[in-house]
């Protein structure tokens, strides 16, 4: 896969292989925090930053620590620990240097620790044997794709408040249905680029 340029991977991660709509990762916060566009965008921004940074860190740890020592079976647990610690660090950093952003993201930052899209991005980079820059592009693109999906569904859900949804479908049920429709719509990008 080394022949793909990071830019192609970036585009693919956003559209054709959208981590949420193609892989259905990060569903929990996607459904929980998609009622308002502003908060969805805030969470999305945090996810973009954290996926990009953690794929880079995890790339280093995987290729320079775990592989040489033959400990690749520790990948999952190590990645989870790194992500959790990194989110903590980001939270402290943002609180100190950008109080405005901290208050905007405040309660969403800890939520990211358990967002599987972030772990997913790190694991795909291993499975697909990306180089460092490909990994960073994939992490960034994955975050942007996830943000795009959550902002789109938040917009839809905001409007849906005024539509006449059948009672048994209200809430998460209809959100799942429209996520499915959105996923099908994103299949239209499939011919553009292809990564595994």
């Amino acid at each position, binding site marked *: 896969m080394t022949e793909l340029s990071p830019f192609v991977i970036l585009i693919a991660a956003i559209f054709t292989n959208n981590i949420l709509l193609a892989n259905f990762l990060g569903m929990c916060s996607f459904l929980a925090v998609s009622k308002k566009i502003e908060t969805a965008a805030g969470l999305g921004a945090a996810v973009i930053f954290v996926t990009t940074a953690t794929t880079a860190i995890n790339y280093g740890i995987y290729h320079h620590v775990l592989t040489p020592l033959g400990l690749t079976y520790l990948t999952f647990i*190590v990645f989870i620990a790194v992500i959790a610690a990194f989110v903590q660090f980001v939270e*402290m950093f943002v609180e*100190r240097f950008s109080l405005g952003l901290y208050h905007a993201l405040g309660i969403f930052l800890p939520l990211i620790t358990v967002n599987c899209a972030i772990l997913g991005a790190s694991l795909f980079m291993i499975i697909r044997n990306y180089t460092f820059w490909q990994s960073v592009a994939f992490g960034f693109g994955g975050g942007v794709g996830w943000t795009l999906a959550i902002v789109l569904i938040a917009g839809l859900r905001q409007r849906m408040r005024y539509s006449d949804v059948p009672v048994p479908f209200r809430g998460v049920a209809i959100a799942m249905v429209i996520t499915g429709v959105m996923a099908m719509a994103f299949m239209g990008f499939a011919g553009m680029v292809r990564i595994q």
Partner: protein
Amino acid sequence: MALLLPILVFGGLLVGLTIALSLAERVLINYGVCKLDVNNGDREFEVDGGQTLLSALNESKVFIPSACGGRGSCGHCTVTVLSGGGPVLPTETPFLTRVEVRQGVRLACQVKIREDIRIKVPEEILNVKMFAATVSANHRLTHDLVETHMRLDEPTEIEARPGQYVQLQAPAPEGPVYRAYSISSPASVKDEVELVVRLVPGGIASTYIHGLEEGDQVIFTGPYGDFRMNEEPDVDIVCIGGGSGMAPLKNLVHTVTARWPERKCWLFFGCRTTQDIFYLDEFRELEKKNPNFHVVYALSDPLEGEEKWEGETGFIHLSVDKHLDVSDRKRQAFLCGPPPMVEAVMKVLEGKGFKPEDIYYDEF
């Protein structure tokens, strides 16, 4: 060796991350010493930044009422932040009205001190102290009520008005919780605090209090409450309560009859059955000694079998209706009981010529 390596690598990684985070915390979450100004220069404190306003105030011996112990779930620890509190957080908005948000009202447990901060608290709060006390008696009044006496150790005296309450600390698995209880001992008793506590099934603090024994150490803060009794002796006092609403009324009755024996004072108290009656003999005794005090108990449930009862029956608002006259005398009424009782009694009192501003109530 094959086992040791992964343990070392993973352990080392965790230790490394922990060290990095602790260092980051030390460097990043260090706001130095901040100034905390209470009521425009009335009190000034130097506190460590990075902690919550509630814990900074507690450290500075300003005791803000807080039932949940700073978890943001009770909404009692409101203070007005004049400057330096940052924006209102999503964790606070459920507890604040729009008007309060505009006035700068915040939950002290959610405000983090990052810079010099100026706040305003009711004058009353500054008189609140933390008391260490020893249980001197804990006796049962009915099947679910106890009367708890606590002798003050440090400080040795409390200055409270009738109707005020204390917050008793009760141990809980996730750290101590505080629960509010009205003081039932009269204001003239300064070296002791008496409470009347009903056992709430599954309640943390009431279970703890019901289990207290003579000699046990307790901690509470107080007195809280901005409620004031009219101190003019020509104003009649009417106390009406039911269920576990006895504590503040007992305090009022004893305070009034001791201080102004010539002042007219009524006590109406509603119980369900004869098993729920308590303090009646004590009040009858007082009634004999003091012709200006009247006590009326009413039972709402029908009598069973052999039981005898010569007092009133039916809900307590019916007795109030029967015993009080329509008049324009100056009277003050204190209601303490379940919401439907308070509502029914309010209607009766207004019909008797009470002004709404002279009726004070506490629903629970």
